[in-house]
């Protein structure tokens, strides 16, 4: 656990020390920090659970995190370095206790271009329910299940800002594996992840490329993007073990294929309406990462007999196979309608309706929305504490299951904010979301800004 934390920290501090020394003639370094304390309470209302009892007994979880930001600028502010290390200590989940360099970026601005070199974060997209187009950064999914927390991505980025629009070019020389909760913790389905498998022979050192063009005409904004490299989203399968002659899932296997993706983003603002569309076409994604059941079956039938005869354990066969890559498309489309100052108050009320579709349908990866509708309301109090509330339901009309979420935010005083998040999962029995059935939770986060 310590080594997991120390490695990125030591690397980061060494690099920063070197960089800061290099610019020591302009040694003015601005430092900010955010310290979070988070407490989560889990509920399940069923007598039996999919989860093992040690997980179910974890009713309350405490966690703290610290994010620092060091910043320096020189060359008339045309060159900057930003360093953002992040650490979390989690009471229950060793996988969630982790450190990351969210950002360590040298930024150079010139008349014709902007260059970024280092580790950073890039967001693409317009919709709220799903971030289909967004592909530069890996999701730090132990941080939050909404997919909006990201791991720092090593990159070289060149940005060209012209009359006709903005063109971003990326070279991404290193891949970050997605983080997942540990098997003894909440939101893990009780299984660990085996080491990742890659399509690329250079594994996480595969060099990925991406580009995005974006522009606008009045209230119409659009972007086109392309990516070629290792998918940020893994195709997930299971390793099995035999227990009393029965196959049971032992651990998750994740396979990161090489994909090509084209993305489109469109947003049109018209009076109180914001119309949004995101779509991707992806090529090279295997439909499944499956088990060769014949070999496994043979192993189950024979291993005990062989062990009895020879006294030696027969190794579990390598059984994962990958189906042929194919292409699919996914879209998220809808609108947000905002009423300014409802009921003659200062409150703004927004209505969000989005539809998400994945052409793979039931073969889509477990995290994907195959055929879902998001209905949400967004409240902005416009008070001096900047209080906001977002409440929504995601309904899958094929599986007829849904999940409800509420996220609220307010400031207690300058320097201390409070966030509330609650989620209720109501998956159908045949739904891929069934693993979340007993994971309903309420989470309070206090954020202290130094």
């Amino acid at each position, binding site marked *: 656990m310590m080594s997991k934390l120390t490695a990125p920290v030591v690397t980061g501090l060494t690099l920063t020390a070197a960089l800061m020394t290099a610019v020591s003639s302009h040694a003015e370094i601005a430092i900010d920090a955010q310290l979070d304390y988070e407490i989560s309470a889990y509920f399940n209302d069923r007598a039996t659970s999919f989860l093992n009892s040690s997980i179910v007994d974890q009713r309350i979880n405490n966690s703290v995190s610290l994010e620092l930001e060091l910043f320096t600028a020189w060359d008339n502010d045309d060159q900057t370095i930003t360093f953002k290390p992040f650490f979390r200590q989690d009471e229950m989940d060793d996988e969630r206790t982790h450190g990351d360099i969210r950002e360590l970026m040298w930024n150079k601005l010139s008349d014709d271009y902007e260059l970024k070199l280092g580790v950073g974060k*890039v967001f693409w997209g317009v919709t709220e329910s799903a971030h289909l187009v967004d592909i530069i950064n890996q999701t730090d999914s132990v941080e939050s299940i909404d997919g909006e927390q990201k791991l720092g991505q090593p990159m070289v980025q060149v940005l060209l800002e012209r009359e006709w629009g903005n063109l971003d070019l990326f070279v991404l020389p290193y891949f970050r594996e997605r983080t997942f909760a540990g098997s003894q913790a909440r939101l893990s389905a009780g299984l660990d992840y085996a080491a990742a498998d890659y399509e690329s022979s250079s594994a996480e050192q595969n060099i990925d490329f991406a580009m995005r063009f974006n522009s606008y005409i009045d*209230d119409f904004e659009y972007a086109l993007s392309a990516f070629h490299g290792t998918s940020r989203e893994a195709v997930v399968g299971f390793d099995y073990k035999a227990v009393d002659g029965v196959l049971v899932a032992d651990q998750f296997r994740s396979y990161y294929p090489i994909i090509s993706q084209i993305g489109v983003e469109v947003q049109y603002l018209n*009076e109180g309406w914001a119309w949004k569309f995101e779509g991707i076409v992806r090529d090279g994604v295997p439909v499944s990462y499956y088990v060769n059941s014949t070999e496994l079956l043979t192993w189950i039938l024979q291993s005990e007999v062989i062990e009895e005869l020879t006294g030696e354990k027969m190794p579990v066969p390598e059984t994962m196979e990958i189906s042929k890559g194919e292409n699919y498309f996914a879209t998220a489309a809808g609108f947000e309608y905002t009423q*300014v100052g409802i009921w003659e108050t200062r409150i703004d009320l927004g209505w969000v309706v989005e539809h998400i579709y994945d052409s793979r349908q039931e073969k889509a990866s477990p995290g994907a929305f195959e055929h879902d509708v998001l209905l949400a309301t967004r409240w902005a109090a416009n008070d001096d504490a*900047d209080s906001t509330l977002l409440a929504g339901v995601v309904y899958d009309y094929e599986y007829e299951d849904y999940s409800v979420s509420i996220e609220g935010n307010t400031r207690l*005083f300058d*320097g201390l904010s409070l966030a509330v998040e609650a989620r209720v999962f109501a998956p159908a029995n045949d739904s891929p979301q069934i693993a979340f059935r007993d994971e309903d939770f309420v989470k309070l986060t206090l954020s202290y800004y130094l």
Partner: protein
Amino acid sequence: MKKILTSALLVAMAVSSWAQTPEEKGLEIAIEGDKRSEGYGDSKVKLKMVLIDKKGRQSSRDMRVKGLEGKGGEGDKSLMIFDTPKDQKGVAMLTFTHKVKSDDQWLFLPALKRVKKISSRNKSGPFVGSEFAFEDISSQEVEKYTYKYLRDETVNGMDCFVVENIPTDKYSGYTKQVVWIDKAEYRAVKIEYYDRKKSLLKTLVSQDYKQYLGKYWRPSLMVMTNHQTGKSTRLVYEDYAFNVGLKEKAFTKNSLKRAR
């Protein structure tokens, strides 16, 4: 060319002032006020916003505003960067003011690294919890109102024109504004805002005007009082600087991401 036309128009209006309608005189005052603030190029200022509720409780926000004067037929551009409250640090807002069509406005959310376009429909909404609406803080272009000169009046010993401004944008939260403009320097020293029901909503008083570069007058303090809620907001301006050499590239959608 445009300047020549404007001057010709002013001369024509001055010559014919004996036959001037209140609308013509109102417009003439607005054009003269606008002309006097022309040529500042670019500007930088620090701003402290103090929100005061009915019971006198205060909370404050610090921000910096960079401005770039529009060239030709374009409106001004502005970039506002928030320093406090601390949880809002790094939030930035870019506005392209347009003379006739709706302004373009983008908000940068640093935690998500997301740039969001804001609907111009929101212009009547409160600006960051204050008594100022988005439309109150945006650049005041002549074309955004129709004008009517009402009378002369003295405010704090200053001889003023009193002009009625009617917003041309149907999304404005106001039916009219009554503006007191001092005759000596064409500064708006007081504005009354009337809501959609035509009742008095707010009063803005601008004071401690200082002159910069020997030409441009800017208030050091603006106080907006909401008569219907009893709340008020003070804007305290510090360290104004003009012609500091800001470039177009500091006012682009992309520049929001590196604004600090």
